[in-house]
């Protein structure tokens, strides 16, 4: 699988995870989108840092080639799924621990 394929799959899985598996439904909440709006520009800054200094290099055969702030566009999907999955887990685990 290419980076593009895995990135799309991971985003779909994170969305499914939030809405239907742990049912935290963060995607329907202002708290998530506000937090994401803060994190997203930070991701662009770090992506630019890591790619402009050639700390991380991507294989052109595995990406579609469109870039944002130096990094492949796929990286936006990667970041989105990491953030959504993490926050969903945090809320899900928190709810379970609070119930005890």
């Amino acid at each position: 699988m290419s980076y593009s394929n895995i990135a799309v799959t991971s985003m779909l899985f994170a969305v499914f995870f939030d809405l239907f598996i742990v049912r935290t439904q963060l995607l329907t909440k202002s708290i998530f989108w506000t937090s994401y709006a803060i994190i997203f520009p930070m991701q662009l800054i770090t992506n630019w840092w890591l790619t402009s200094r050639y700390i991380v290099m991507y294989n052109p055969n595995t990406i579609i080639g469109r870039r944002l702030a130096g990094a492949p566009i796929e990286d936006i999907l990667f970041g989105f799924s990491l953030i959504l999955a993490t926050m969903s887990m945090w809320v899900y685990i928190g709810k379970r621990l609070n119930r005890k």
Partner: protein
Amino acid sequence: MLAFTVVGSFWLEIALKVGVLRRIKRLALSILPVALVFLSWDAYAISHRHWQFDEHQMLGVVGPFHIPLEEYLFFIIVPIAAIMTLEGVRQVKKHWPVGDEL
């Protein structure tokens, strides 16, 4: 990059008293399963040469599955920063539902 992320988010722990680091059990249970999945992806991507790292700009410590130490730290620090951001927003917007309220 990791230092930037730490500086950019961990001040919330003090300034807004988000208390993320204090809830260590909840933090570990949230972060570790996600990190495991993403590190598997990282291992696959490294072995299939989706991405590579400049070894001159690395600490030089490489862990299991040829994953550099920085990548392991990335999948711990970035999720903590994301959770601190969420909790920081909650402190400012106390009436917004999150979903874990008692």
